[in-house]
């Protein structure tokens, strides 16, 4: 597996990710936690313990460098599952995904897997797990800390962070390491107005730098402003893909909401 490269050698419109006929099915356990005790209790009864979830169904998508793809859809539409497939976290059940570059994920606040460790430790560990070298992270660390505006809090345990601080650190890590392909899953909206603007500028900067971005968001106005393309997922299927305004209008119509302020607002 490749490490996240700092340089970018990709041209505009060059293919970044190709998703071909991807389907994802998995079984989840109905019990909250799978335990030996629960298994033993239901042993004689032949009761089915699992439920089959069809998260993605025959998805075809291409993402080019220099483009920003917005992904929209209701909760449970399969947006995060698709992002996890692209990042190689979940293997697809059908189809094939080809990735032509390094991927950095910012999937629903990825950094901070150990809340009792400091922000600094978590950034290093997250980066190392993603395949970066210690030197690479150390080289980027000051910029990350500065971008996140956390100040001294960077050395405090992450359990003391507010959700906004969490999101800021997560975004900073993903945006500063300059991956070829950046996936941002609903993480833009947690910061305050100032940070949100800063991160949007960063997104635009990365776009003009010929990187590929995938934004998963419910903030329609943001998507209209930043994306070249929007894909609308519903119940694991790709409903529509194309011009942001066209797709978002169709989606909002579908929601029977029209152009209400509630969904245009970045919430």
């Amino acid at each position, binding site marked *: *597996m490749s490490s996240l490269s700092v340089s970018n050698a990709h041209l505009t419109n060059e*293919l970044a990710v190709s998703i071909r006929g991807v389907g994802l099915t998995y079984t989840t356990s109905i019990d909250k936690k799978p*335990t030996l005790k629960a298994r033993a209790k239901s042993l004689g009864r032949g009761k089915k313990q699992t439920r089959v979830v069809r998260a993605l169904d025959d998805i075809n998508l291409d993402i080019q460098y220099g483009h920003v793809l917005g992904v929209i859809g209701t909760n449970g539409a399969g947006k995060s599952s698709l992002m996890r497939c692209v990042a190689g976290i*979940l293997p697809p*059940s059908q189809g094939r995904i080809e990735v032509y570059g390094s991927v950095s994920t910012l999937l*629903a606040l990825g950094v901070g897997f150990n809340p009792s460790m400091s922000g600094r430790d978590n950034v290093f560990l997250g980066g190392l797990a993603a395949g970066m070298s210690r030197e690479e992270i150390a080289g980027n660390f000051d910029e990350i800390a500065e971008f996140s505006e956390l100040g001294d809090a960077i050395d405090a345990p992450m359990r003391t962070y507010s959700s906004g601080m969490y999101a800021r650190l997560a975004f900073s890590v993903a945006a500063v390491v300059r991956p070829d392909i950046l996936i941002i899953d609903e993480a833009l909206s947690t910061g305050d107005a100032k940070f949100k603007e800063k991160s949007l500028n960063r997104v635009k900067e990365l776009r003009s730098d010929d990187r590929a971005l995938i934004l998963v968001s419910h903030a329609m106005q943001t998507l209209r402003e930043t994306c070249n393309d929007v894909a609308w997922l519903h119940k694991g299927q790709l409903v529509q893909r194309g011009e942001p305004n066209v797709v978002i209008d169709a989606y909002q119509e579908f929601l029977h909401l029209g152009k209400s302020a509630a969904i245009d607002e970045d919430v």
Partner: protein
Amino acid sequence: MSTPLQVYEPFKAGLPKLGRYWKSLWSRRTFIKEYSKSELREQHFDSVFGQLWLVINPLLLSAVYFILIIIIGGATDSARYAHLTASLFLFYLVANSLTGGVKSVTAGQRLILNTAFPRIMLPISALVIAIFKFLPTLIVFIVIKAIVGSPFTIEMLWAIPVLLITIFLALGLAITISCINVYFRDIASFLPYLTRTLLYLSPILYAASDLKPSLRVIEVVNPLFPILDSWSQAMVQGEAPELSSMLQGLAWATGIFFIGTYFFLSREREFAVRL
């Protein structure tokens, strides 16, 4: 067009490509180092008193068990105490990698859901942490051995291969139990009973040679029995352990490692949906 860097396709049950997996694991070896370091730092083992606790804790433990031996077994000698501490410390290396390993995957949930990396790094880190906790107790034992006047011989070097076999066994156990815990979360709650049983089934509170013939079966079913016996032979008595015991221990370690790793590797790609 250039060739894709990564291709994700449906996987059949079975192992991932081992060569690639190993490369990917090896390139992340610093993660294992850093993760163990920060974990130890978080548990305050980087401070003076934290390290002191690493030494005091096993000493207190051995003192408690020594009292038990005196009360149950009557009169006893200093060699017995040396045997107890040496075996107990090695046992805790295995027990710590079990208790650290059991939740290593489930606790790494956030990381697993958000980053693609070889999941086996997590139980390996648990083993590394257990080894770091073991090292100071080794020094304590050497001091105890000198105080009770037990002989230092060249045969004590046999303890090195025995220790390596133990680490191998502990690794296999950590990998296995971390994988089982993904599917049965209550294993973590059973574990204290499991380790306690293992403690009593191992030649720690008693010498292997004291075992009643009718209980000899323990020797065969307990993976720790042969290595703890060999460890005591080498470290306490300063004699070369029996080769058959060491081979038996190695066979256990190899078996557990390969079976556990096979299950872990063939299952790890679906951990993300199981957490």
